[in-house]
């Protein structure tokens, strides 16, 4: 029997578009646009100038701040421009544009061969930092920071988040199927850095093939593969921890408060590459999908490839899309142009047709209570939306637990009045932050 959590919704998973498609490695793009900010934390500053020749894997932007992550060239070639470019998360951001020389040459010394078992945890962590590893599920929190809990927080369990609960996305699923050894190695390295003996892989039961493959790959390692009920948001960090360990991350707390660290599938692959081969995070597997895409695929793409280039590799559009989203349909961000680049957190490029993206007109809340039942955080989402609508931002924060909302979107999905609850939640959060900043 699989285990579950309170609340949640069951959207049609739409994974059939791309679940059966093996990962294809995209050809080296002629040009890449690499933003200097691809993570939560301090932005990086360029360390190259226009006209410089760079090699694949060379650091091109970095900063001394702890909560940050360096950025590397994803192709070899010439820096032709450093300027503001559209960014999938931040709107616009300074980016380094590199034109390929066609050689796709590694920076000297890469790739190399290292045995992680012989390396000290602190050195492993430094390798992970230097490789620019960040959380690749979309949040892009620097991985080395997540692996550095304060000493009073004793970590006892590492969880690999292989739930991939967002509809449409299949990148993690394919990675699990095609490179289970790398995934398991990444998990073991992470466990060594954290100093924990218990490792768990949580995976939704709609991926039985991956469960089987992982069970074989983890045999003898002590890592347990736990099938999870297929329900959104199974892969949200807090619900995942609740389901696997039975513990609830306290309100306002972090997973480390209950002794748990969670990493995404793409992230552990990047960790393994960083440690075993010395390869920095310059490419990732991304699902290009949606009803508008001619031939949905799982692509291994260089960071800095534009959405347009990736979609072209999938045969372009068979129907005009009305929405292009970075990430999945539940928490992804709608884009205004196809010129945004793939960044470290781009798990999917979703192109929705008019029919798929039809969200209907927003109506008044009829208090049906579906959002309350769907909320995995035990909030009253309808009230948050009403308070947001009436500019009662402080009431939302103080009386209706605004800050506990994880913006999973379950409430909006299930709402018969089609209320944009997450929109109001984000508005309330931003307004409260602005008020706090003013004081």
């Amino acid at each position, binding site marked *: 029997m699989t285990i579950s959590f*309170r609340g949640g919704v069951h959207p049609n998973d739409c994974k059939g578009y791309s679940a059966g498609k093996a990962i294809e490695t995209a050809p080296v793009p002629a040009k890449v646009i690499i933003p200097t900010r691809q993570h939560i934390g301090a932005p990086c500053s360029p360390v190259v100038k226009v006209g410089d020749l760079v090699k694949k894997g060379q650091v091109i932007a970095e900063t001394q701040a702890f909560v940050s992550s360096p950025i590397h060239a994803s192709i070899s070639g010439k820096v032709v421009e450093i300027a503001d470019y559209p960014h999938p998360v931040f709107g616009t951001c300074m980016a380094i544009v590199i034109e390929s020389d066609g050689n796709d040459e590694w920076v000297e010394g890469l790739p190399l061969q290292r045995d992680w078992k012989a390396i000290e945890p602190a050195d492993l962590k430094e390798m992970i930092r230097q490789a620019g590893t960040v959380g690749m599920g979309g949040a892009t929190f620097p991985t080395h920071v997540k692996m550095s809990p304060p000493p009073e927080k004793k970590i006892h369990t590492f969880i690999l988040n292989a739930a991939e609960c967002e*509809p449409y996305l299949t990148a993690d699923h394919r990675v699990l199927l095609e490179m289970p050894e790398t995934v398991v190695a990444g998990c073991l390295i992470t466990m060594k850095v954290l100093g924990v003996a218990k490792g768990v892989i949580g995976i939704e039961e709609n991926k039985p093939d991956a469960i089987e493959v992982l069970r074989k790959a983890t045999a003898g390692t002590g890592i347990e593969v736990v099938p999870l009920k297929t329900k959104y948001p199974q892969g949200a960090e*807090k619900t995942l921890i609740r389901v696997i360990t039975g513990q*609830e*991350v306290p309100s306002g707390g972090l997973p480390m408060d209950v002794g748990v660290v969670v990493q995404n599938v793409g992230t552990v692959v990047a960790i393994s590459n960083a440690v075993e081969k010395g390869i920095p995070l310059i490419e990732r597997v991304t699902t290009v999908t949606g009803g508008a895409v*001619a031939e949905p695929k799982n692509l291994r793409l260089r960071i800095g490839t534009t959405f*347009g280039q990736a979609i*072209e*590799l999938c*045969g*372009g*559009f*068979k129907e*005009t*899309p*009305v*929405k*292009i989203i970075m990430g999945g*349909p*539940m*928490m*992804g*961000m*709608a*884009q205004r*142009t*196809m010129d945004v680049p793939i960044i470290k957190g781009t798990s999917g490029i979703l192109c*929705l047709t008019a029919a798929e*993206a*039809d*969200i209907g007109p927003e*109506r*008044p*809340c*009829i*208090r*049906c*209570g*579906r959002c*309350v*039942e769907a*909320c*995995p955080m*035990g*909030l*009253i989402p*309808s009230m948050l939306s009403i308070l947001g609508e009436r500019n009662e931002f402080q009431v939302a924060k103080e009386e209706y*637990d605004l800050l*506990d909302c994880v*913006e999973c*979107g379950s409430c*909006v*999905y*299930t*709402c*018969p009045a089609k209320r*944009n609850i*997450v*929109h109001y939640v*984000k508005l309330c959060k931003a307004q409260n932050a602005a008020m706090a900043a003013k004081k």
Partner: protein
Amino acid sequence: MSAESKLEIGTLAVSTSPHIRCDESIAKIMWTVNAVLVPAALFSIYQFGLPALRTLVICIAVSMATEYFIQKWQDKPITINDGSAFLTGLLLAMNIPATIPWYIPVVGSIAAIGIAKHTMGGLGYNIFNPALIGRAFLLASWPIAMTTWPTPAGWASKVDAVTAATPLGILKLQGYDALVKFFGDKSDMYLSLFIGTRGGSAGETSAVLLLLGGLYLIYRGYINWQIPVCMIGTVGIITWAFGGNGGLFTGDPLLNILSGGLILGAFFMATDMVTIPITIKGQIIFAVGAGALTSLIRLIGGYPEGVCYAILLMNCVTPLIDRLVRPVKFGARR
């Protein structure tokens, strides 16, 4: 292939996540509730004849027209197609005597939509169930007409059709034994009540048809089973305990459950999502309270029936219940 691939895009829509919605809508919920009430409404026509049809048409038409004109006047989007005004009219018609003079349901529908719904801000903002406000308004304005029940023999023309008194009215004025004698024997009484061959408001009589409709709504997830179960259960227990002449637990719970407007109220009006608490725990409190008030009015109040006022009174405390009963926040346990 890629050379000829299409990359044209129109204007891209940008909005907050999530980007997909389930296929439920307000209109779908409202029209489903309307649909499951149709059998009981048709039964009222079968029972009470053309006057019942006339009352239904008046209530629905005037409700929708009132909503249309108010929205037109206020320059708001016209939403009469979403089925909610239709539902208010339908429920009002089912809650009043079928043969009532035509102008009374006209006034009632205007009161329900105009006063109870739109002075509060329209759909979603009303504190009280509009149909019940309409009914209460009429009961206060025309107490005689509102309690003059037709003989349920319109097209049924049964020789032994019951006369123009409701079972609860007989129970109140003449006592339990008189009521049983009125129907013949006990099992005849239960059968009559269950099928609906009895006096009463137009659409409240047929317990079986209302139950079937209510069960379908539960199956579809449009109403929570806890509400009708708790409300009906509370009435059953209280009338069983205190409703008899021979001391504690000599009352007839089944009679009390099947008569009056309890089934209609518990399945279709105590479940009106706009006017009841939003959490299931709150809804249970609401339902038990409505059941207790119904029993109180029936047993010691001046009226034979109390479902309407009981639900309206509980509507008053819904905001209070919602303040006090909250879901347990994630991470707050222990």
